[in-house]
Each structure stands twice: as C-alpha cells, then as structure tokens.
C-alpha cells in the first residue's frame, strides 16, 4: 500500500515537482519584502507551469519532435506544449525585465528596494499634505 503510493509519486514526480515549485514561488513572492526576491519568486512560479506543460507532452521512448529525412517511424513527443512554452518563456523574460527596470527607478527615488522601508517613508510623507 505504502509502497504503491511511493510508486505513484515517482511516476508523477514532474507534476508534483511543478506543484511544489508553484507553491514555493508563491511563498517567496508573498513573504519577501525585497523586490528582487519577489521577481525571482515570480520567475519560479512561471517556470513551474512551464515544467508542468512540458511534462504533459512527454512520451516514454519517444524522440524529440524534429523529423529526419526519410525516417518517420517511432513515437514523437507532443510538440504543442513545447511550442507554447517557447512563447511562455519569452513572455516571462519580458515581465522580469520590466519589473527590474521599475526596481532601478524605485532605488533611485527611495534609495532602497525593501517594500516595508519604502512604505515607512511613504507614510511619514503622508502626514504632510501632498500636492
């Protein structure tokens, strides 16, 4: 019984690993005050979904979806998830870079990239009426 449970886990290890990474990434985003850490957390969340997609497309004993001249035998892995993830990776990079550019600008304005410190400065500013 216990043994078969572990076999189940081992057979679905990529799926469960993706779930773990999703949760770890979400935890990193929510708990950390540092913006760079938050962005790393978001990247981990994104790659977890990509891992899930690629694992869905995998087939045992299959060759990569690149055909060779003449020979078309044998199973191939599902090419659709790979194609989706290629797009997804680039989208992830775009979001990361835009977030980082805002981190640079925030550092120039506040001198720190910790959310709680910035909120403290903002609150002390709030006491004086703002324009």
């Amino acid at each position, binding site marked *: 019984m216990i043994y078969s449970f572990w076999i189940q886990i*081992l057979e679905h*290890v*990529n799926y469960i*690993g993706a779930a*773990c*990474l999703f949760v*770890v*990434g979400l*935890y*990193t985003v929510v708990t*950390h*005050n*540092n913006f*760079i*850490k938050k*962005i*790393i*957390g978001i*990247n*981990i969340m994104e*790659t977890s979904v*990509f*891992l899930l997609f*690629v*694992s869905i*497309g*995998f*087939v045992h004993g*299959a*060759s*990569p*979806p*690149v055909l060779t001249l003449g020979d078309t035998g044998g199973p191939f*892995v599902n090419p659709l*998830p*790979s194609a989706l*993830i*290629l797009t997804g*990776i*680039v989208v*992830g*990079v775009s979001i*990361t*870079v835009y977030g*980082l550019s805002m*981190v*640079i600008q925030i*550092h120039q304005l506040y001198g*720190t*990239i*910790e959310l709680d*410190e910035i909120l403290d400065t903002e609150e002390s500013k709030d006491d004086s009426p703002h324009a």
Partner: protein
Amino acid sequence: MQVLNFILVVFLVICALAAGHTKDLLSAVVIFASYSLVMAVLWLLLQSPDVALTEAAMGAGVTTIMFIAVISRTSRMEK
C-alpha cells in the same frame, strides 16, 4: 532515466527554496541561474530540445545578466 529525472526535480525544489532563503541577492541570482540551467537539462531529458535551448539562452543567460545589471545598480544584500 526516471531516477535522474527524480534527482533533477528534487534539485530544482532545493534550488527554489535556497534562492528564496539566502540573504545575498547575488547568490540568489546565481542560484536562480543554476535553477534555470537544471530546468533546461530536465527539458532536454523530456525530449524538448527547442525549449531547453531557449531556456538556457533566455532564462539562464539573458535574465541572469539583467538581474546582475540591476543588482550592480541597486544594493546587494537583502535586509
């Protein structure tokens, strides 16, 4: 093959936890780069060479450079 897959997944989770845990942002970024590389190897193992190549170039290469460029312009340590 399944054993290698298992080891890589465990390594990924450990990398993710470590990247969240370390206080040095530069280390976190380097750990994240190694995470991306391991992810690329895992995808190569899952027979998706296109995705692996893209992740190695984009995720481990360009993203890391951008992270380091930003850390060099901001601060290195997390408080």
